[in-house]
């Protein structure tokens, strides 16, 4: 596999009316009751723990799975745990039409892949992307492919900085390359 390609089985974060959930905030992703936790290994169990309908997510998810969410994913607080809980579960990628600004930075800086896909609502509405599908995304070219359904779609390619930080496996290593020892 090319090094710019990520693939995995998707979980589409839908509400009861089968719509992509928008504005999922960091308290729904990782509740402030667990902010005192600093061990990565303990964070996974709380992922999506305050999101109605998704509280059993940590038990259901498998290593390498991909999360598909609605716009403004990760709104709210600056807590790194809201990204780290997905790292702890070994989630491969989060796809959303847009992200909370701080959330996006936190993901980029920790070398966790996040990608924007403007057409996501439409793709989900017409069931071109459904939970359980296997997808493949090239984050340099922006080409996405639902392997299960053989449907292609577009994502926004990563910026050079995001790509470089991802390749360096995080901001610290990237910074060291720039001389911030």
């Amino acid at each position, binding site marked *: 596999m090319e090094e710019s390609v990520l693939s995995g089985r998707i979980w589409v974060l839908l509400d009861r009316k089968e719509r992509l959930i928008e504005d999922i905030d960091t308290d729904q992703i990782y*509740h402030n009751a667990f902010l*005192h936790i600093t061990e990565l290994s303990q964070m996974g169990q709380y992922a999506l723990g305050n999101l109605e309908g998704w509280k059993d997510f940590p038990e259901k998810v498998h290593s390498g799975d991909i999360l598909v969410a609605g716009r403004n994913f990760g709104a709210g607080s600056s807590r*790194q745990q809201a990204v780290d809980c997905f790292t702890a579960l070994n989630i491969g990628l989060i796809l959303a039409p*847009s992200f*909370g600004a701080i959330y996006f*930075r*936190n993901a980029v800086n*920790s070398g966790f892949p996040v990608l924007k896909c403007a057409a996501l609502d439409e793709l989900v509405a017409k069931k071109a992307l459904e939970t359980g599908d296997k997808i493949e995304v090239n984050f340099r070219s922006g080409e996405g492919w639902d392997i299960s359904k053989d449907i292609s779609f577009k994502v926004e390619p990563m910026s050079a900085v995001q790509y470089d930080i991802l390749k360096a496996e995080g901001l*610290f290593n990237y910074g060291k390359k720039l001389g911030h020892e």
Partner: protein
Amino acid sequence: MGKTVIEKIIQGHTVEEVKPGKIVWMDLDIRSARDFGGPNVVKNYEREYGETPVADKKKTYFTFDLCVPPSSLKYADNQQICRKFARKQGIKVFDVDCGIGSHVLVEEGLAQAGTTVVGTDSHMNILGAVGCFGQGMGDVDIAFAFRSGKTWFEIPETVKVLLKGSFSSPATAKDLTLYILKKLGTKKAALKAVEFYGEAVKNLTLSGRITFCSMVTEMAGIIGFIPEFGDSLKSEIKDISGIKFSHHQAEKDSSYADEVEIDISGLVPQVAVPFSPDNVQDVSELKGVKIDTGFIGSCTNGRTEDLALAARILQGKKIKEGVTLKVVPATRRVYKEILEKGILEDLFRSGAVVSNPGCSGCAEGHMGLTGEGEVQISTGNRNFAGKQGKGKTYLASPVVVAASCLFGSISSQEDL
């Protein structure tokens, strides 16, 4: 092409040419961490950099404001992790007695117009109120900033919002803020800087500007600025921080992603209904909704002026039996002012619980939490499901919260 306010501030902190959409490396004037986020900043720092000194200890701070003094053993441990690191590194700690970090940085004259400030508080963009580029960041970003004094930042586009008309009592700065949040929602300003113009914002006091700019976070915006200001703001900021105030102005030919006009004339008190801060209605539509408890404080409404507004409503009266009201000053300075001005006494005599300064219920560190089925009316900035507990939280001004606590149901000044 001319530059907007945010572009001018960042241009003063980078050698690269600033334009929207471009990622630049920029210098940070102040790097801070609080008791949440802070311990992980320390952990990241020591893992990556060991004993190496921070880039500049005079520009690096800890501000404890979340669980102050700690009411859980975990926070006690976490604060001590930060203190130990701070002592070793020679970094100043604004400890558990000081209050909300972003406010302390303004009072101490550390967050000044035209400067760049980061911290582990998602409402750090509140500093837009004083023309400072403040930004909340996660613990990886902040550890990196402690060491390098720099961060990467994608220059956001700017939206220009012109407010038409003015407002007066019983509407307050919070009502204006909630109304604008209702109009802009979480989409119009998403991931953008916002410049607000018009008499209504130009004439806001420092406290009002803080309330207003604090909720740009809830608009999903990067930061909000109010470039125009009156003379009284200059003296207010001078009195509080000893700093001479000025504000960057957008250049005439600067380019905006969008220009929005909002007519605010006839503004009446507003309330945000659970579970979203932009789910805003006129208070009259919610009259009679029963409440169990009230909360006045937070970085949005915890200044002396806010508590004075509440005290004016509560003076000589008693909170309805069976209802509780919790009041949390933003900072120790605010605490001193309400003590000296008799505001604390009015609040106390009305039956309110008044605590030491801090962030309180916005994170689970302090008072302001709700149990299942409990209904709270709060001056805070967020009412997301589950954030302050299993109950429901309505957001409103200090005036509406105080009045509601007198009646035990959502009420306004006119009901008195």
